[in-house]
């Protein structure tokens, strides 16, 4: 599921940067690709969650294990702590993106660069936060 973000970002950057390379940035159509990128990330995550839940349900039905994870098993204190830990790490990138956007705006950069910097920072933050959560679950927290 985490892979959705880098894939969408690679597609977005390859599309818009190829356009930037061949024409002035003012003429580049970037709004539609950016909206598609955000939409695909949201859609991809929703589809991923549904697929994983169905997969877990099938596995639980076959093996009898992990039923509590699907049947409304509440997130406990450890899950919440790991969630907060990942969110906190993720916000480092979001903050850097906000600072980058301010600097770009002060320098009079085109909106494309500001929007792309914010999108990139958000994507990097989400991926980093996800990796931090996975490591916390696997290696300990």
């Amino acid at each position, binding site marked *: 599921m985490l892979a959705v973000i880098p894939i969408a970002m690679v597609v977005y950057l390859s599309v818009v940067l190829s356009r930037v390379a061949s024409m002035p940035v003012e003429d580049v159509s970037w709004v539609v690709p950016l909206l598609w990128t955000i939409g695909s990330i949201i859609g991809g995550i929703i589809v991923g969650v549904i697929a994983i839940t169905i997969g877990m349900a099938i596995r639980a039905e076959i093996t009898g294990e992990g039923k*509590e994870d699907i049947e409304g*098993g509440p997130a*406990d204190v450890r899950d919440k702590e790991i969630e907060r830990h990942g969110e906190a790490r993720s916000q480092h990138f979001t903050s850097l993106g906000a600072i980058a956007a301010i600097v770009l705006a002060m320098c009079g950069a085109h909106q494309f660069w500001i929007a792309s910097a914010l999108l990139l920072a958000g994507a990097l933050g989400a991926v980093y936060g996800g990796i931090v959560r996975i490591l916390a679950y696997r290696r300990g927290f």
Partner: protein
Amino acid sequence: MGKPTHVTNSIRQLRFANGEMTQADLAKRVGVTRQTIIAIEQGRYSPSLEMAFQIARVFGVPLDDVFQYPESEEKQA
């Protein structure tokens, strides 16, 4: 990455000494997921003080019988 906690525990032994209680049973009685009990048993997660007391209460033993903090670690701290 080193072990995230220096706290050791005897939960596994206590479970077996208490009628071979399963991790799922202990989790249910403490009010956490089975994964959390597994993580605590394996030393991958340090429970809160409140959860530690809850676990000790399930086994009916003092906290020290469930969780240990090795002497050498205390001196280093």
